[in-house]
């Protein structure tokens, strides 16, 4: 599923997904207009390089991703090509394929293109989170708690919520966007800027509102990382109700978009 948006590189297929003349791809120095090289170009490119070189470049891409992932900011293809891949851009698809394999087999991570139009990638865990208390006592990030609350409310309210509802709910939890919070600092910035940049949330302006209002939705990262079923389970626990009583949310959690989380880890 994570591979569906990327160029298929089966040897022998003679068409790239995008029409690109060979001269353009070779001579292009403008990084913003990177066009995906065709399979034949990739093959030719590979012939000119040693395996060690390709491995080295793949390793650099893997490292770049891992460091970028520390802040959970998505990686843009244009940046990747400009800063890391550089002159190896003709074999870009091959490098990405190998990097994905490395993530999968070495780290247990999936590299996913969350934005096919702007070509942005993130890393998510290939494995489901373990049941019960975690094996390692790694420090928890309280911001994840804050995010979780917002995602839960948005999901339970049908996927879109006006910002006022979020702010008023947070206030009940002693988190006031107007004041500096002990744990989170500038709450408004964390929620509307940081979480949005990380693609956990979308914060979109509602037209025709005066004064300007926004609504919150799940971001692309949340869509692939967060399990709606598990949120519903948690709701059930909190309210001491059967999760199935929220029929619409339950249906949503088990619908097509929810099935990616429902799949168990493969061995």
């Amino acid at each position, binding site marked *: 599923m994570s591979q569906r948006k990327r160029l298929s590189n089966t040897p022998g297929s003679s068409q790239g997904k995008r029409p690109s003349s060979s001269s353009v791809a070779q001579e292009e120095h403008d990084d913003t207009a990177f066009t995906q090289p065709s399979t034949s170009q990739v093959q030719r490119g590979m012939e000119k390089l040693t395996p060690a070189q390709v491995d080295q470049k793949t390793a650099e891409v893997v490292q770049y991703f891992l460091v970028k*992932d*520390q802040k959970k900011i998505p990686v843009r293809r244009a940046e990747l090509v400009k800063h890391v891949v550089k002159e190896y851009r003709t074999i870009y698809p091959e490098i990405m394929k190998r990097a994905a394999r490395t993530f999968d087999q070495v780290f247990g991570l999936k590299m996913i293109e969350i934005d096919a139009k702007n070509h942005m990638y993130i890393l998510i865990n290939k494995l489901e989170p373990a049941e019960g208390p975690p094996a390692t006592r790694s420090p*928890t*990030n309280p911001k994840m*708690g804050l995010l979780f609350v917002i995602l839960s409310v948005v999901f339970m309210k049908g996927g879109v919520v006006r910002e006022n509802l979020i702010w008023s709910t947070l206030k*009940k939890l002693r988190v006031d966007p107007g004041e500096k919070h002990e744990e989170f600092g500038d709450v408004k910035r964390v929620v509307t800027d940081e979480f949005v940049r990380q693609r956990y949330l979308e914060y979109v302006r509602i037209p025709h509102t005066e004064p300007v209002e926004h609504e919150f939705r799940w971001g692309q990262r949340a869509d692939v990382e*967060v*399990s709606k079923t598990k949120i519903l389970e948690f709701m059930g626990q909190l309210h001491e109700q059967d999760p199935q*009583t929220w029929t619409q949310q339950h249906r949503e959690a088990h619908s097509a978009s929810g099935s990616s989380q429902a799949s168990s880890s493969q061995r």
Partner: protein
Amino acid sequence: MKRAKGGGDEDGPRQNGAAGRRKGEQQKSDADDGDCDFGAGDLQEDDNDPGLRREIRSKYRDLINSVQQNREDMLRPSNNKLTEVLEEANKLFKDVRQAREAALDAQLLVVATDLGKEKASQLFAEGTAFDPTAFAEHLLSFMGLNRLEDGEDEQQNGGAVDGYLPQDAWHRVARRAQCCVRAAPSFHYMMGSFHAEPPPPKQRTERQRKAPGKEAKRIMPTQLKRMEGSHQEATEKEVERILGYLKSYYQDDPTSPISYYEFVIDPNSFSRTVENIFHTSFLIRDGLARMHMDNAKLPCIAPVEEGEVEAGGSLSRKQCIVSISPKIWKELIEAFDIKDTMIQPLNTHNE
């Protein structure tokens, strides 16, 4: 997630303005008998009456404001305020003649429709509705809120539960959240970034530089002390020495006066001449020597006998300033034919 999937079938919010208007008008013509009817003659006057136009526009604006301000109120499914607003608008619309008013009507329609859409989405729940307030309360308990026993405090906070949230409240939520999220664990280097080479050499050079600095500092003060001490002593010693010379020359021949210039001038060194003048002046100041003019009006110097000091003391003291330049010094040497210095220089003279 589909938004407009409202399961409810309520009339008011889901109708758009035009349909609502038609219905509203029908209702009105049944209900209101002569309230808003006006004769044909009135039409033309009302068209152009600026006062009426303004009134209509102002009423529209009021309606728009009321929708925006009382948004939360209108959203509640328990009342029909939105429908009332639409009915008001219908009434106003009858009097609309000009584009400006129509524009306001359109604006009101947009605002009302928006609200209507939101009301519709509220009705979305088949099954249990989700109440964020209840959720917040349950979550506070989950986070470990220690509710105070005192019931009064709860009311004072306007319904918000009082109490203390433990330090790790949000960490508890975060831990629970981790179970629901397939986030990639953050990657960090185990040893931090690591350069083996630079630090040790830096330390070594610093230490070396520091050592000489300290020694140098230690030398300086002792040197200064010695100099200062010797400076004062040197002057005193020198003055005494010169007095000694003066006395011995005087005793050799008490009758013959000693020429001042011959006494102080050292033909071999101008600087020593100046020093001699300087030291001799102390003798004069302290009354140990006196100067007088001889017959040739040239200055002479002679030591003062011990008994004479008090007598000459305060009465006949005079001051004068002696100046000398190398040119004058040479002229004096020539004039007095000074071959040798009368005041022998010290051998261990330190500059």
